[in-house]
């Protein structure tokens, strides 16, 4: 790392109407460093870099890149000049080939007399993919055939194809598997070695501590402090960062501390020899007051189990039972007190272009109506109650969900089912992209739900939270149960991983 500053901001501000996202932020990024930006949801960490990469304009303040004033009009312009950003959300062009995605905006390089040489483009794209050790993606194939994760890898390659001076990686790793992460980490290292800079925005404390040379902590649009390499290497750094992020001691209580696995006798939800798609003959009994965790790699079939239990997948064999009722559709499920939090929060769990109120009340409308009439006052008080109990950061219940930060969005999708009073909650990756403060609140909520006798099926890619929260932990591999663990203080991640891979 050199001492040369490649990018800096001066009194950078950003407001969204009355909401202040950034207050006079001064930040410097040096050449060849891997800088971590951490902070709770809504602290402004993505906002800074999204302004730097041309996605949006600042309300006030100046930026300098390579000693010149920096004011990119678009992400394309910024990427051409040397600041590329990989976003949290999917950012691919659907329905076209992988190669066309990688070289979007650069077709001229492959065309003669206005006709694109597709073969040449595919070849170049494949070569590029291989140079990052990505062997399983074929550039000539339609991108729709690849998963969200592969899409992310393709985005990374696209960002790198312009040889950026600064690469911004915004919450990307949550979407990646171990393999994908390795590719990304290797690439980040290589960049730093070549005197290029990387800004890593992440909630994953371990990742930040492991990967970054320097850290900047933000809270409520303000920079709280910086940590250098020495400080990052210290033993108590995690606690220190948490303290800086939240602004108070959040205590050590994070996951459940009890090891009491008792639950009620009554079975709340049962999957009886279910077969659907690749899942064959799967059975599960979830009791009232019990938390069952399901872990595995993302392709292990665990996500399908959640969808099956909620009546979203057609069954070839077997049945899903809640009490005496057979669950065949989502409506059956909801009427029997089952709630489902999809892992695809932005596409399946929330109406982004709708208000918090609309989202929270949607499953409730049936029970709210009186002779067809749904009282706006009731809707409002119901959503305000949930906003308060989850402390969702917003101006009012009328605010649109797409204006909320990731953690607050997730709170809304939880609030839907607590407002409905669901007794059985299926949560798929409930803390994906959510910061520590919110995570802690959610774990407490889940624990409280257990005490209230609610049944919880928690599907997650994060082993630590599964170990920390579940009474019983089912590990899946290749669409089958590979091992079942009982809650125990001795259970370690290392014991589990061998059953996953």
């Amino acid at each position, binding site marked *: 790392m050199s001492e040369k500053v490649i990018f800096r901001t001066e009194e950078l501000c950003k407001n969204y109407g009355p909401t202040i996202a950034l207050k006079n932020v001064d930040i410097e990024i040096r050449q060849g460093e891997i800088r971590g930006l951490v902070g709770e949801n809504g602290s402004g960490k993505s906002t800074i870099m999204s302004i730097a990469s041309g996605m949006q304009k600042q309300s006030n303040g100046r930026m300098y890149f390579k000693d010149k004033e920096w004011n990119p009009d678009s992400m394309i312009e910024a990427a051409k000049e040397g600041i590329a950003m990989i976003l*949290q959300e999917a950012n691919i062009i659907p329905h076209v080939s992988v190669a066309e995605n990688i070289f979007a905006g650069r077709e001229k390089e492959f065309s003669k007399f206005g006709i694109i040489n597709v073969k040449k483009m595919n070849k170049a794209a494949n070569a590029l993919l291989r140079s990052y050790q990505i062997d399983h993606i074929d550039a000539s194939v339609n991108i729709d055939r690849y998963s969200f994760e592969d899409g992310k890898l393709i985005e990374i390659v696209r960002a790198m194809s312009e040889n950026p001076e600064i690469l911004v990686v915004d919450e990307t790793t949550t979407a990646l598997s171990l393999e994908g992460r390795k590719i990304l980490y290797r690439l980040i290292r290589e960049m730093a070695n070549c005197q290029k800079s990387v800004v890593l925005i992440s909630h994953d404390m371990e990742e930040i501590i492991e990967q970054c040379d320097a850290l900047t902590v933000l809270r409520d649009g303000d920079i709280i402090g910086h940590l250098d390499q020495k400080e990052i290497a210290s033993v108590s750094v995690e606690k220190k960062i948490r303290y800086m992020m939240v602004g108070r001691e959040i205590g050590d209580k994070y996951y459940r501390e009890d090891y009491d696995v008792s639950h009620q006798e009554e079975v709340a939800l049962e999957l009886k020899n279910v077969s659907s798609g690749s899942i064959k003959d799967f059975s599960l009994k979830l009791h009232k007051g019990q938390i069952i965790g399901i872990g595995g790699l993302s392709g292990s079939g665990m996500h399908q189990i959640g969808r099956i239990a909620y009546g979203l997948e057609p069954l070839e064999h077997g049945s899903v039972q809640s009490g005496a009722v057979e669950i065949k559709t989502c409506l059956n499920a909801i009427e029997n007190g089952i709630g489902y939090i999809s892992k695809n929060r932005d596409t399946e769990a*929330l*109406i982004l272009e709708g208000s918090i109120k609309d989202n929270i009340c949607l*499953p409730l409308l049936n029970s709210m109506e009186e002779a067809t009439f749904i009282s706006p006052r009731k809707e409002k008080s119901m959503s305000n109650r949930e906003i308060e109990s989850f402390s969702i950061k917003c101006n009012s219940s009328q605010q649109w969900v797409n204006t*909320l930060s990731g953690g607050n969005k997730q709170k809304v999708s939880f609030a839907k089912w607590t407002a409905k009073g669901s007794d059985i909650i299926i949560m798929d990756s409930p803390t994906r992209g959510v910061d520590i403060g919110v995570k802690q609140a959610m774990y407490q909520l889940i624990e409280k739900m257990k005490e209230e006798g609610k049944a919880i099926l928690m599907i997650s890619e994060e082993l630590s939270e599964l170990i920390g929260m579940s009474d019983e932990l089912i590990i899946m591999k290749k669409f089958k149960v590979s091992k079942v663990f009982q809650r125990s203080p001795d259970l370690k991640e290392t014991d589990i991983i061998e059953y996953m891979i």
Partner: protein
Amino acid sequence: MKSNEMIKQNKQKIGIYGGLVTCLIIFTVLPPLRGQSLWTVSKLSTLMSDVIVLALLSIGAVFIYSLGNIDISVGKQVGIYSTIIVALGNTTDSLLPGILLCIVIALVIAVINGSAGDLLNIHPIISSLVFMMVLGGVSSITYTQLGTRNISLRTVDYSIFKNPLFMFLVLVIEFIVIGYFFNYTKFGKYAKAIGANQQVAKQCGIHIIKYKIISYIFFAITIVTASLFQMGYTGSASDSTGTGFEMNVMVALILGGMPLSGGMKSKVIYALIGSLTYSLLNIGLPLLGVEPNQVFIIKAIIFLIVVLLTSRKKYGVLPR
């Protein structure tokens, strides 16, 4: 600076209401200079009879536009229903049998239009296209068989449908009824949710096809109502009755500010504002001395301005 911000934030509202208000101001101030006036009983009655059919249709169409769907069979439906009401009116000496038959047909079409998209996995506009062609064909065959291009009511008294006050009353009632169902019941709320994100709607336990059909049924009832007034203005129907109405409805809704993608931004008032603006232009421009054959061009320009102000999508990126 402050006022600039205000304008920026309320650009959409200014576009929607601004169009109507500007039209009202221009058509109030300018015509007197040429010895004309909009605010006379006769001109207002003309306005009422110009706007009634379009407004009735557009208000009902809000239900299906909010789903993100577009219906283009509505013009031909109006044509067929007007024909049926006149024909059965002449054979039975009452409008009622015709109305009932139309309601039955409209319901059948609504069920098919509402469910075909999801059942057959086709774009919902396809089934309405098919109905447009089928009904057009039926109308053409009917009038060829009759050996005439138009039929008129002979004995039944239809004068009530020519009464501007009655038109106004029906319009207000429909606005209130549709407004109620759209804003204060699950029918409207579900329609908007389906339009905004069908996956989410499904996972919230909404029976997608059922509520799509219900939305089309609301629309169907308003089509029959509008057909009555279309038929009642002259007491007749012809093979060209209703031609182009589907486009007028679309223009009125877009003028009013309705998002074509549907969803939570959909509002019933947009239909009213849009059709009023549209008719005001029809009535007002000739008062300014614009030749009737030039009205189209001017409407197109105004349409473009309003659309540029209201309908352009722009996603801001917000704090996270």
